[in-house]
């Protein structure tokens, strides 16, 4: 399932996938895979993404 909340949060911060990937120390393709729902990140990466986007885990990764 696509993670549209992550994509929206990234766009809200005006960051490209590549820029977010650099902030989280991962490859651009990994961010792309998470947004497309092709990859489930570990909790460590989820936290890194949340810190980079100033969001909580609930904001980005909790399904309503």
């Amino acid at each position, binding site marked *: 399932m696509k993670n549209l909340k992550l994509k929206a949060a990234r766009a809200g911060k005006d960051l*490209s*996938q*590549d820029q977010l*990937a650099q902030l989280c*120390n*991962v*490859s*651009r*393709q*990994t961010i*792309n*895979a998470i947004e497309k729902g092709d*990859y489930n*990140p*570990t909790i*460590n*990466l989820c936290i890194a993404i949340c810190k980079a986007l100033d969001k909580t885990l609930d904001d980005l990764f909790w399904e309503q």
Partner: protein
Amino acid sequence: MDFTKLILCLIILGGVALVCFADRKSVKNFDERQLLYRGRAVTIAFASLLLCLFVVLLLNTMNLAWFDLSIAVILSMVISLTIFAVYAILHDAYFTRLKKQVPFSVLFLVVALANVFNGIRHSFGGSAESVYDIVLPVAVGVLGLVVCATLLIKSRIDKKESDEE
């Protein structure tokens, strides 16, 4: 004592030590998804190697083998290496996250073409001392060409993804 073979053994030993050391150092260069897919690529490559060896030995046992056993084993290894490379490239797990694909695809192309040319030169020039001189360079060349083509296809897919982003 053959010093050439001894030096070759030392180079291989040094290579193994380097790979072990580099692997420990480069863990941070690959992110968690890349490590996952590299693991899967190794598993698939190992399974394909075992499958190839099974076919080779089966044909050999049934006296249907039209090839030398050692060449068949080397070709099996090249096939499994190719499968590893293609799977890892298609899942963005071949290079560390900081390395760019395009310079490496050029490097692979040059090495591949040099190997294929070397094999053809041995084949048609009659300078081959054994069939290894033809089969090995051509196999490595084909591996390089496949890797190069996969890199180019993947870089196009990546570019398309970036544009759509």
